[in-house]
């Protein structure tokens, strides 16, 4: 399983590095969305507002949906699905590999968007750095859950539009926990309560993905 996960993750990351979809399409979209959020708050409110973490995670949600669809689309290109299916890859390894690749991509995007938050939304730099570990774990959890739901929607009609409908109820607790954790870091409060939710969700989604990804692929 680990060997397949490594092969799939490196393959997905190599494709991303080659196609530069993340660099030229997803990241600019995220930065523009952050900029619009800053403009909506206005220059007087941006620094004083507590809305920074919420706006950051709202943009992360949009970006994550794009990246999940992209991750699954790689496997569903015409002709690819059937040929790769005949390789007989271990589905648990495929799930882990895709989740790891998506995690790395979300981390890169998240770090850029955090920089944007500091510049555009004027979130406190020290507090943002303190929140970084919790943000990375939250993004990993979104990647794990997103990989699972991405596989679920790719089998049906209209996967790009079905994905947000299915994922939002699942993502909501993660986004709230992430936002609370980020806010707590900015305001000097305790972080651990929110970490527990995110870490438990990460373990749960990863376990479910390992167990059920094969069933989703077959369906």
């Amino acid at each position, binding site marked *: 399983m680990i060997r397949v996960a490594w092969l799939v993750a490196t393959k997905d990351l190599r494709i991303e590095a080659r196609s530069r979809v993340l660099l030229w399409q997803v990241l600019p979209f995220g930065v523009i969305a952050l900029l619009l959020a800053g403009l909506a708050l206005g220059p007087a409110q941006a620094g004083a507002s507590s809305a920074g973490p919420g706006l950051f995670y709202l943009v992360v949600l949009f970006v994550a949906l794009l990246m999940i669809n992209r991750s699954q689309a790689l496997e569903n290109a015409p*002709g690819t699905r*059937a040929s790769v*299916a005949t390789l007989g890859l271990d589905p648990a390894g495929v799930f882990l590999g895709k989740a790891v690749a998506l995690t790395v991509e979300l981390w890169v995007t998240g770090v850029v968007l955090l920089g944007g938050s500091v510049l555009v939304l004027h979130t406190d730099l020290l507090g943002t750095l303190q929140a970084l570990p919790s943000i990375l774990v939250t993004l990993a959890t979104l990647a794990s859950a997103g990989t699972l739901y991405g596989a679920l929607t790719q089998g049906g009609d209209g996967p790009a539009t079905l994905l947000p409908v299915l994922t939002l109820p699942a993502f909501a607790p993660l986004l709230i926990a992430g936002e609370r954790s980020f806010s707590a870091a900015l305001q000097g409060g305790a972080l651990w309560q929110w970490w527990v939710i995110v870490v438990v969700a990460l373990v749960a989604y990863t376990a479910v993905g390992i167990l059920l990804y094969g069933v989703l692929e077959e369906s």
Partner: protein
Amino acid sequence: MVVRLANAVVMSKGFPLLSGVDLTVDRATLTVVTGANGAGKTSLLRLLGGLDALTSGAGDVAGIDLLSGDRRLLRRRVGWLGHEGSFYADLSAYENLVFAARVLARPVSDVDAALERVGLGHRATTTTKWLSAGQRRRLGIAWLLVRRPELWLLDEPYASLDDAGRAFFDQLLADVVAGGATVVISAHDPLRSIDLAPRTVHMAGGRVRVP
């Protein structure tokens, strides 16, 4: 006997893709499935490859029962070349084959040999989406050479190949069959090459029509 189907039915969303196919295919033979568009050729190949499930009837492929057997195991034994190509468009020809080789624990040196064999040695580092349709088809064949499956399922393999490509492909098929593998091809028309001496079966309306 590599393939044995009896009254095989495949349904998709209530629509019969195959409506009672009887077919046997011997080991180390070349079989060509002909028929018009929508006759069920691709559906038959997908059933044989374990890509679609058998709804009713009976059948086994490479010793694996299509109703009760492990279709994932079956898929590992077959090689599939579809209409559109068989690989990741943003990887190079070489990277695609290395991925397949590593998954199947084949030596990476097989990749260079396969690319040379299909005449793509000079395009190894080209990103796949920049290859021509004929070159992508050759890459698909190289993918199968790396995989070395016991049952080759080739959906319209002559599409996009020029005369030289067709001649090359005829020779390749002859070598594959001589090496003990079994090949099933779908095509609109019977093969031009008489040297291959394939067995031809005709499909219409999701059934095999014996001439």
